[in-house]
């Protein structure tokens, strides 16, 4: 037991970072905050899913997508369609000319449920669609772009255009999509009222749990050969290609992975906020998501979570106390981070806090494998730690991105 790899990992320094995040999200924040603030944190965490995806896709593989909002939005819309259908029972919509369809369809003279809404009566289908629809779109975009070696800035701008197209489409087809208002007034999930404080708190914990699932999935990929190929591709794409790897396939994979994460985040967002609107698909939302990732540190999946939390908390905080000043503060934050700390919070941590930790731990004697004490971390020699921390990542230079 003591020597099982899982326990060992949790006792390692990296494991402790994860434990610290878990402690913060599962114990500290729920104890400190009331239900209202906790729900806000839950909302911020749904953005963290996108940020983790961006770390994989942009930080590791060097593919900057300015259209992550599209995938976030698609996931969210899938969930919202299911919830809307559940809320639009014939009884609840009795005053409409066609009862039993969503209210906005009735306002637009649509008299029957459109075909693509039908499957969303099933919760199982919805769960698949939340991941499936974004991944499918990512696959189409990815195959079209990466096999033709579109990359870098071009890719970023094309994804931006896709975000613009989808926004205009959704707003224009308001009979089928709710238009600019989005899909609102969502009430229950399989009969469970999602608007109560208890439900919001429960959803918060679901969000945290899924966040860790995604974190571990991302970590797993990072540690495998796959992750190293991604990083290698970022720095020396041609060498990887000449070594016989199909670069496009790896790019498509990581882009789809990021889309899947974003879709999950979007679905959770819909659940915790209670509506979905085209403003999350647009360019502004998509760029903000990149900022979360950049602030947290584009190379660190944990950093991305902290980045999403901090930027959003700052945004809420600034806008509550200084409504006129918050755009200045946000703008300054972006510029500052990019100019001074290109690797974000995680980079700062690595430069300033880690050496301190090292000194701290080195003096302590080796203790047993109990998880509780932080002092268990230095069970490794620096050499072993070298294995834990991917040398490629340390040598990675953002200049090539």
């Amino acid at each position, binding site marked *: 037991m003591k020597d099982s790899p899982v326990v060992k990992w949790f006792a390692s320094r990296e494991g402790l970072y994860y434990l610290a995040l878990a402690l913060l999200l599962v114990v500290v924040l729920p104890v400190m905050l009331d239900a209202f603030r906790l729900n806000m944190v839950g909302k911020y965490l749904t953005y963290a899913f996108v940020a983790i995806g961006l770390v994989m896709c*942009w930080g590791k593989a060097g593919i*900057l997508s*300015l259209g992550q909002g599209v995938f976030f939005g698609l996931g969210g819309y899938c969930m919202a369609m299911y919830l809307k259908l559940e809320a639009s029972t014939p009884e609840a919509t009795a005053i409409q000319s066609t009862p039993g369809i969503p209210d906005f369809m009735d306002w637009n003279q649509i008299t029957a449920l459109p075909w693509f809404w039908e499957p969303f009566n099933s919760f199982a289908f919805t769960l698949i669609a939340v991941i499936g629809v974004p991944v499918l779109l990512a696959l189409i975009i990815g195959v*079209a*772009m990466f096999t*033709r*070696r*579109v990359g*870098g*800035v*071009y890719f*970023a*701008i*094309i994804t*931006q*255009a*896709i975000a*613009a*197209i989808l926004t*205009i*489409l959704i*707003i*224009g087809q308001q009979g089928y999509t709710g238009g600019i208002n989005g899909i609102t007034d969502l009430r229950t999930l399989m009969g469970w009222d999602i608007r109560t404080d208890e439900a919001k708190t429960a959803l918060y914990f679901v969000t945290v749990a899924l966040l860790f699932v995604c974190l571990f999935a991302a970590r797993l990929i990072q540690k495998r050969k796959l992750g190293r190929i991604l990083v290698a591709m970022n720095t020396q794409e041609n060498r990887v290609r000449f070594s016989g790897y199909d670069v496009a396939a790896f790019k498509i994979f990581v882009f789809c992975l990021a889309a899947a994460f974003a879709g999950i985040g979007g679905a959770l967002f819909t659940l915790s906020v209670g509506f979905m609107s085209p403003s999350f698909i647009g*360019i*502004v939302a998509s*760029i903000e998501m*990149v*900022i979360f990732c*950049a602030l947290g540190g584009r190379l660190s999946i944990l950093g991305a979570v902290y980045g999403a939390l901090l930027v959003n908390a700052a945004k809420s905080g600034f806008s509550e106390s200084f409504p*006129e*000043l918050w*755009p*200045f503060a*946000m*703008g*300054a*934050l*972006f*510029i500052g*981070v*990019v*100019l001074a700390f*290109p690797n974000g919070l995680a980079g700062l941590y690595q430069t300033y806090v880690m050496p301190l930790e090292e000194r701290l731990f080195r003096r302590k004697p080796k203790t047993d494998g109990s998880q509780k004490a932080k002092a268990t971390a230095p069970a490794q020699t620096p050499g072993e730690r070298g294995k834990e921390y991917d040398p490629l990542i340390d040598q990675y230079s*953002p*200049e090539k*991105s």
Partner: protein
Amino acid sequence: MFDGYTTSELMSIFAMQGFAGLSLFSVFVLMALGLAIIFGQMGVINMAHGEFMILGAYTTYLTSSAFQSYLPGLFGGYFFVAMLFAFLVCAALGAFVEWAMVRHLYRRPLDTLLATWGLSLILQQAYRTIFGAREVGVTLPDWMMGSIQVTDMVDLPINGLFVMIIALSIAIAVYFLMYRSGWGKKVRAVVQNRPMAEAVGINSAGVDRATFALGCGIAGIAGAAFTMIGSTGPSSGQAYIVDTFLVVVFGGAQSLIGTIVSAFGISQAQSTLEFFLSGSMAKVLTLLVVVGILMLRPEGLMALKIRR
């Protein structure tokens, strides 16, 4: 849809539709030229391009107010002064931004995107604080309003013609500057091979700053011209950014000619589609076609043959 119209009516509508396409074309050229220099030549993704345009528009607004108060007699000609001011103000801010921010990021093009996005947030809020959240109305001199009546049905808007002339002159000026002047040679040398350019004694930092300032200045002129046809408000600039980038990328980022060709193609497509379809669908279709072609030909229409 053409039932019940006479041939002459149809002819005049097509003539005017052609003109509408041309004036959209000149709008696109104006929007994109500044960015083509900054993004195409320097590789800097300037997300604050729209905000530089609005700065030009606000400069025009201030100039017109000043002329109204102090030189009412010369009001008819204020617009030319305003364009000059717009160029100078935007170029000055551009040079400052290059010095303070962009020059540290030349090796990280994607990071310029984030930093200039931050800059655009700051500029927008600055406009809101200084000029108020409402849109400002820029008064035009009387000679610039109205239209020239060619036939009964065909009216050519004077401000549309004016925008065309500005677009044309700036395009020609940029062409001579970039391809026929010593300075342009230096710029192109720095773009193509920075270390070699430095080795032959070109001050690459100075060239960078001047190029960035030039791009921003052209954005300012575009903004001044757009006060004639669009709105001037703190966040008006965002409306232009996607279109602008698409025009530049579609044309092939490093080719100024490509930018003009792509502006022509996109504007004709959009204005024709708008005539036959409803507005929103026309926009979606245009964007889809552009994205589709870009997927087939990622380097854009007129790409330089370079090693990637």
